[in-house]
């Protein structure tokens, strides 16, 4: 697998475009950019929150543009993907466009893992992410309903018990979410990955405020900053960090924060498989749905299989 920068001016055509159908208005922002360049179009819809915000408008947009909509059960993603995508993917020798903007971390991880496993060599995946306008973080802490492997079928025993466990955790702006996850696992070592986006200072301010207790409680932990707008650089920086750590540590990645970090973590877990675990922390449908609008800024990363 080779990771490359992807230039939007490439004006590529895609064998298939896979999108997320949700209630957020940005659900169709990537779609509108590439819909005419995808030979096949598939939107993975949710089977909950279908009455929220822009869901109906989005669905209409997909359907009226010849995009097949399939409802995917969050508890049986793999099964739904096998059923609807396996045959198509195994025959594709070209580019697959995947818009992760409104996919849950669980969903996008299952989808990417499925593609990694099934796509034939010399094909490639272009991952797109539409950055949302800033919205304030939730004022309450939603109860965590799931804390475990980001992929249902993949949770290896990573490394000897005598290796020191280390958690590399991406921080988001939700209050004390990372602190809860770290505190629960109580690992020997922690490294924080802090997202930065020079165009979005509000996010950074809230992140610092809402992780203050975490920084206070883990003062000796190393913090590393990554640029959300440069996934290619982040991939190499995170990979080199993992290479340095894995000789002496059992590594667990927990990519909270921008979803692009979940994608990068997953790529790295695939490359080092089965040595690295990636976990998610989710409140599932207990979270209040927020209609995030696209900021008009997009980031891409290309994976050559």
């Amino acid at each position, binding site marked *: 697998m080779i990771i490359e920068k992807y230039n939007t001016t490439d004006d590529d055509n895609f064998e298939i475009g896979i999108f997320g159908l949700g209630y957020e208005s940005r659900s169709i922002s990537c779609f509108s950019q590439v819909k005419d360049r995808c030979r096949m179009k598939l939107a993975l819809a949710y089977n909950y929150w279908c009455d929220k915000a822009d869901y109906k408008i989005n669905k209409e947009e997909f359907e009226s543009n010849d995009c097949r909509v399939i409802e995917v059960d969050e508890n049986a993603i793999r099964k739904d993907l096998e059923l609807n995508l396996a045959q198509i993917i195994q025959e594709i020798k070209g580019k697959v466009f995947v818009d992760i903007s409104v996919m849950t971390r669980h969903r996008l991880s299952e989808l990417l893992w499925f593609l990694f496993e099934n796509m034939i060599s010399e094909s490639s995946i272009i991952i797109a992410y539409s950055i949302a306008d800033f919205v304030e973080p939730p004022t309450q802490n939603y*109860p965590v309903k799931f804390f475990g492997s980001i992929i249902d079928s993949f949770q290896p*025993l990573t490394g*000897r018990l*005598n290796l020191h466990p280390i958690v590399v955790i991406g921080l988001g702006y939700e209050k004390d979410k990372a602190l*809860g996850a770290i505190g629960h696992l109580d690992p020997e070592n922690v490294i924080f990955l802090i997202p930065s986006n020079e165009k979005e200072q509000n996010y950074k301010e809230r992140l610092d405020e809402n992780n203050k207790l975490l920084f206070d409680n883990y003062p000796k932990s190393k913090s590393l900053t990554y640029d959300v707008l440069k996934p290619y650089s982040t991939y190499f920086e995170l990979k080199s960090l993992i290479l340095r750590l894995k000789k002496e540590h059992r590594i667990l990645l927990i990519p909270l924060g921008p979803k692009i970090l979940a994608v990068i973590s997953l790529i790295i877990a695939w490359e080092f498989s089965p040595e690295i675990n990636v976990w998610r922390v989710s409140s599932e449908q207990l979270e209040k749905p927020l209609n995030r609008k696209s900021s008009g800024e997009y980031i891409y990363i290309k994976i050559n299989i």
Partner: protein
Amino acid sequence: MMNKSAFIYDSYNARVLTYKQLSDTFITNKSFLELAGQNNTVLIGPRGSGKTTLLKMLQIEALSLWEGEKAEEYRSKIKYTGVFVPTDMVWYKQQKKLLETNNNNAQVARYINDLFTLHTFECLLQALIFRTSGARDYRRILLSYEKERELAKVLATQWKLSPDVYTLKSLFASLILKNQEMLSLVTNDIFSDPVRINDNICSFTDISQSLSASIRQINNMISENDGCWCFLFDELELAPTQITSDLIDAMRGSNPNIIYKLSLSPYNENISNSITIRDAMESQDFSIIYLPDSQDIDFAERLCEMVLEKKGLSLGVIEKFENIDYKKEITELAAKDNSFNRYLERKHISIENIENYTDRNKKPEIRKIRWSVLIRNYYFNNNLSLRSIRRPADFYAGFLNICTALEYNPRMLIGTMNKLVQQYKRGKIDFYSQINALQDASNGFNAILNTISVGSDDFYTVQDLIQKISTQIRQKYILGEVFHDEPKGVFFFKKEPDINIARALGDALNTGAIINVTDNKSSEFNISKFVGKKFRVSFIFSPTFKLPLTKLSPIEYDKLIDSKIDSISELDHEKDNNQMELEL
């Protein structure tokens, strides 16, 4: 990526510390004295209660580096070689998931047990290599090349290894390779093929038998026939279930060359309840130590002094909450709370005479109601409506209250003291800073509890459970319409709770959010059944939930959390008290 700025103060987790750091910062306590003895011991306590520190200090590596006041005394007293065997939550969750994915297949379980046994061999070999390497003179073994070769050979046979050459270091490398090979097979779909899995299982017998056989060979080769080895299993509840059970059973064994010291969290539904404290007392096989020891105030003081001293401070700088005008508090509450007035009348307590009462005359009763009076007077307006204050009252501050609120948990005490030293100004650490530090500790704890999911319709997480219990205590007994001289809050069960609630309570016990306050912990040392025991919510939540920092009266759990029972009359309250006493 760029490195962010360094942080100001230190956190404390014994697992992170090097031997040197551990031994340099170690402070002995009563529990360590007991633990260090030449007998099997079970160490029980929630996270942060100091189990890991105490066990790690018994390792040969840590003992050899220790330079503290009592170091020499302990070194000469301890006649065994301590072998620390860690495990951790991440590995636990991974192996649990692996078992679930394979429908708890017995072969998979054996495979995981083998991995853990190999891990234990690795720890044993590390201690042996330390002793033979001569890095320090303490308990050094002089082993000839021939003897080492012979020893490596017999251990390799026992451990089913094939090192390139027969040396202890080569054996160690071989152990690591074997472990890695088995791990890689786990993810290589080995479990779908019973033949393949059988070919790769080491089939070690019971872990204690494997260790006995190894120790026999080691002692023989190092010419220490009486040599004693002490296995210090930390967080044993996170080890595979079979391993845990085997080790607990092994504690009743009589191999004079092996001692087990096992640390466990208070609740583990999988551990057999066959061993009771009575067993231990009768057979004198092992002792049980409960942590943290809230009676060991001296230890808490020395621990906190150590943190403060690093910044040139002493305990004296923590502002004391001692000059409270209790008569004024009682007078003010009596002026606005009729139920309190009625209580005073019923008990023939006269406000004018408050200061003249003695221990034989009313003083104990007045002392007993102190927290209720302070809380009600602070949070009630004159019309008995609740004041809208979110910040906890200052009367939760002061060193002893901080220790009580933090349940004398060493890790929390160190963390909080580290925060407080940063707030030192104008010669003191004021109430404001102390309350902030307590709130931070409580918020951090809540964040953890919020990630522990509960499969119950009533509660999503352990945090919900704690919130529900605490809120009910406050609403019914502390800040309800009626003043209670014996507010309830310690809860018990008449029948075993639903499994999801039991697990939630278990997780709460293991994190220290709920405390076992059974008067005589004479049942099984591991709480897997709740009937017959008493519990309370940790005092760490008291400032936030406006609850006393003192033990409350017992009530049945179902009655406590039933929100339909929202207020209790004074008469019912008295009847209730009498009934509870009969039931308990």
